């Protein structure tokens, strides 16, 4: 496989991580706690889409190898994830009068509840959307790029969603209010912004993006009750690498972590080819830069970046 091929794989995987990490960072900046139920919110989105897709079917035509029904299911997945997150905020986080650490611990409990509910309804086994997997796009194979139309759809949809968020944050009234609130909630409130409402919208957007990420993760790989939770550590790494609380940082962090994860085989090829001296050092390096440590390598890079820039890539700039 060529560098281009690894980069393409990395792009697809990054898209999913970016969708997950934006929501996590957004909620952190405005609701002010690290939401450990975020991964399971992704799972909820994925399973909501599974149910919808099972109910509505393909709906005739298809675009990018995906039936129209799947896009409807995607929207439902996003909506359900948002509704569940807002419901949780209203029922649990808001009435709960504890500090951010208390909320963090609570969210771990919430994560278990989400997962248990899904497990009760769908069992613990894995499943897939009833969509026929595709072969790679023929015209790209000579370049060593082996991606399917589905992968293109994942990247495309992620770009649309992330672009939409950018427009929302920069050019709309709500976006300005959100940025104001992330910067200084008290000042925002004093200047007449209804912070509670902004907070709810934050949950809607954050959880909605997570839901979309979950649906794409299900399409990319498979659905299982632990799918979101298994990705959560990587998402946290992405968010912290980017600078927690910063949406653009989360995008950059998600992109980097996804890329590093998928590029590990390429790195090991490079290390293989490098004339490292002395020999024992080469052996150690080659042993460490290996596919089985893909996640560990991503985390090491995260630590290195944090040593240089303690506040992450996006520095201390909020939102």
């Amino acid at each position, binding site marked *: 496989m060529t560098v281009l091929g690894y980069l393409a794989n990395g792009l697809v*995987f990054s898209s999913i991580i970016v969708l997950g990490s934006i929501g996590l960072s957004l909620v952190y900046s405005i609701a002010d706690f690290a939401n450990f139920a975020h991964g399971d919110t992704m799972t909820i989105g994925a399973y909501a889409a599974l149910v919808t897709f099972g109910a509505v079917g393909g709906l005739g035509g298809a675009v990018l190898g995906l039936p129209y029904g799947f896009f409807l299911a995607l929207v439902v997945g996003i909506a359900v994830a948002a509704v569940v997150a807002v419901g949780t905020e209203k029922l649990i986080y808001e009435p709960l009068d504890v500090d951010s650490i208390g909320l963090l611990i609570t969210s771990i409990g919430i994560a278990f509840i989400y997962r248990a509910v899904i497990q009760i309804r769908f069992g613990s*086994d894995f*499943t897939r959307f009833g969509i026929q*997997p595709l072969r*790679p796009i023929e015209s790209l194979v000579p370049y060593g790029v082996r991606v399917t139309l589905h992968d293109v759809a994942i990247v495309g949809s992620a770009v649309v969603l992330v672009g939409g968020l950018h427009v929302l944050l920069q050019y709309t009234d709500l976006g300005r209010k959100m940025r104001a609130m992330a910067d200084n909630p008290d000042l925002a409130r004093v200047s007449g912004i209804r912070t509670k409402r902004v907070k709810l919208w934050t949950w809607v957007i954050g959880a909605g993006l997570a839901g979309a990420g979950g649906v794409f*993760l299900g399409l990319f790989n*498979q659905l299982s009750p632990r799918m979101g939770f298994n990705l959560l550590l990587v998402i946290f790494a992405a968010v912290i690498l980017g600078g927690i609380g910063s949406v653009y940082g989360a995008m950059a962090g998600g992109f980097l972590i996804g890329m590093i994860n998928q590029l590990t085989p390429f790195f090991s090829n490079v290390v293989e080819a490098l004339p490292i001296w002395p020999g024992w050092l080469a052996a150690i390096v080659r042993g460490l830069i290996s596919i089985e440590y*893909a996640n560990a390598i991503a985390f090491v890079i995260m630590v290195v970046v944090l040593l240089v820039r303690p506040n992450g890539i996006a520095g*201390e700039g909020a939102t």
Partner: protein
Amino acid sequence: MSRNSMDLTDRRTLLKLTGGAGVAALSGCLSTTDDGGDGSDGSDGGDGSDGGDGGDGSDGSDGGDGTDGDDGSDGGDTGPYQIGMVDSLTGSLSAFGERNQRGVDLALQRVNEVEIDGRELDLIVEDSESENQGGIAAAQKLVNQDGVPFLIGAVGSGVSLAIYESVVQDTDVVQLSQNSTGLNLTDFPGLLRMSPSGRSQSLALSNIISDDGYDEVAITYVNNDYGQSLTDAFVNAWEGDIAYNNPHDQEQQSYSGVISEMDSSGADAWLFITYQAEFATMVNEVYSSGYEAQFYGADSVSGDNVIENTPEGSMEGMKIVVPSAPVEEENYQSFADAFESEYDQQPTSWAAYAYDCVINAALAIQAADEFTGSALRDTVRRVSGPDGEEVTSFEAASQILADGGGPDDVDYQGVSGPIDFDENGDPVGFLQVLEVQDHAYEGIDFVEG
């Protein structure tokens, strides 16, 4: 500036908490590693050594006192013979426990229709909760309180080993595991088992791949005891080249790196020693990357969930080796018929193993001079060993013994295979080779381990 430093401390606590929670999350992963659920999972044997702290040596030898008390037979020579069984009635391996119990009930019926020298066989079943501690507690209860000289148990290899090391070793009690396939059980000759060792799978795979004409293979295995031990056994048996041999972690969201490396290794035969979910992900990624290779797999990659969640034709021609009862043999078929009329479903080989455990135990009791561990230890191997007349039912074997035959005059052929424990306490395993044809598993061959 003050805001900035506040920000920093916030971040610091967050990082700490994330780390802590991460550890918690990881430990969560560890515990679920065991619910992978299939037979070979039982072989997460590394845990076994933990068992040591559960019951110390002295407890074990107390067990010896319990057994020579002959309490069971004191109840008059007409009372039932009492033996014990540790099974996974609850916990991550409870599906196996359920299968075992069906086989056990059927076997007890068979034995008690004929009776052992006019006495019934009574099996006390205790739950291991599929955990080492639960297994040790159950075994201690059976050995020390009930004083059973013969213990069937357990399912998971780790649990079997924990029981052996902390309860059975240094006593006269005979332990016969019904379902453990872990390779390391071979190192304990005193611990018998009815299900074949994973090693026989590795040997069979190595033979099949070279018979198919490949001299180069790429292997990926799940990063735990099970994957490692099967792979090591394969590598030892394999005489060709190994182009790629790397582990992968469980529950990753993508294995495209692994499969692209396997592809670039140049080998045309790919061997997967992993679990169903991971394997299904890999197959889908191989399919959507357009790679072509001949697949081989250990039993843990087969399952209906894999078939359902992979595209048609993506695994065509794949060969998988699974522990199996010799389903074409007559005695298995009569067992299957009886099983079906009783439970309205096909038996699994795990039920057959449990069935044979009980029959083998009953024959050992009948052949022994007295109902003690040391006497049973002598007969348990001989009644099903290669010497003597081959018989396929308890009734026939019991008849030979009743007519004055010794343990060496009988060779009980189990429904799960010929048994014939070797010097390490492992049976001659029976393996079935499955091939994926038209996206379904078809049995194409049987091999003896």
